[in-house]
């Protein structure tokens, strides 16, 4: 008995079937509570006025945009090394979700930038990095769509994901060299433990982060299940054609 047993497609379908609705429920609960709390019950910040409320959307979305790519990287590596089909399909399932998160982070950031910085868009390193991340998602999804043979598609997108990760990190530091930023530093530096957000804003923010994370998990599980079924349909119709 090892952890890899859960990646057997049949087993994966079995154990995720009851998990998916629960994850969706918990995600809705956490997101709902966090957003309602953040929107209705937090005071305005001195410097930002009511725009501080956008943080409950922007920060969790940005967090999940990066984590989604990281999850795809891990899933791709698992596919390359251990050849578990579910892993490749999970990477495929996560990409559109990650892209939507990137778009949310970009849109809310742009809207927040207008009253705060006086412009919707600046070529600030963080903003630019997210734009680049969006392009990588686009290319990754397009490559999946373009290749017909599923195993070839899984292999090629995995390589693209690994190479893309290296170039994404490279671009992130390259744009820093190219332009100094307007964007404030991270408000919740996990590594150092010190944070610049007071508890009034922090608790609902954490709730939203957990909610977005759960929502991502639920969507990935649901979409992976769909991909497994689609793969099965493909196999069955191919068999019917041959017979």
């Amino acid at each position, binding site marked *: 008995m090892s952890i890899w047993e859960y990646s057997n497609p049949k087993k994966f379908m079995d154990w995720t079937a009851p998990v998916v609705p629960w994850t969706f429920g918990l995600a809705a609960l956490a997101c709902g509570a966090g957003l309602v709390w953040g929107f209705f019950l937090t005071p305005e910040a001195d410097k930002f006025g009511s725009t501080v409320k956008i943080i409950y959307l922007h920060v969790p979305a940005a967090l999940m945009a990066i984590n989604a790519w990281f999850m795809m990287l891990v899933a791709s590596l698992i596919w390359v090394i251990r050849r578990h089909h579910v892993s490749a399909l999970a990477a495929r399932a996560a990409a559109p*979700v990650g892209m939507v998160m990137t778009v949310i982070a970009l849109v809310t950031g742009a809207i927040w930038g207008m009253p705060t910085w006086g412009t919707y868009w600046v070529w600030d390193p963080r903003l630019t990095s997210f734009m680049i991340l969006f392009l990588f998602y686009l290319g990754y999804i397009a490559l999946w769509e373009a290749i017909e043979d599923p195993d070839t598609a899984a292999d090629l997108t995995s390589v693209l994901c690994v190479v893309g990760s290296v170039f994404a990190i490279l671009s992130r530091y390259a744009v820093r060299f190219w332009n100094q930023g307007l964007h404030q530093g991270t408000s919740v530096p996990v590594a150092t433990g010190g944070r610049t957000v007071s508890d009034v804003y922090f608790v609902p923010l954490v709730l939203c982060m957990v909610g977005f994370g759960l929502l991502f998990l639920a969507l990935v599980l*649901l*979409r992976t299940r769909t991909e497994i079924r689609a793969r099965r349909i493909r196999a069955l119709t191919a068999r019917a054609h041959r017979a």
Partner: protein
Amino acid sequence: MPELGEYAVYVLTSYAATLVLLAAIVGLSVRRSRRVKRTLQEIERG
């Protein structure tokens, strides 16, 4: 409804945009899931 002051438009549009985007990805995922599930059941029943 909390008092949003002069920035109301910005806060409300960002909430609206986010909810629309999230609803879109959830809706699309659920719809495709249902459709694929139905197709698979039809095929397996023969």
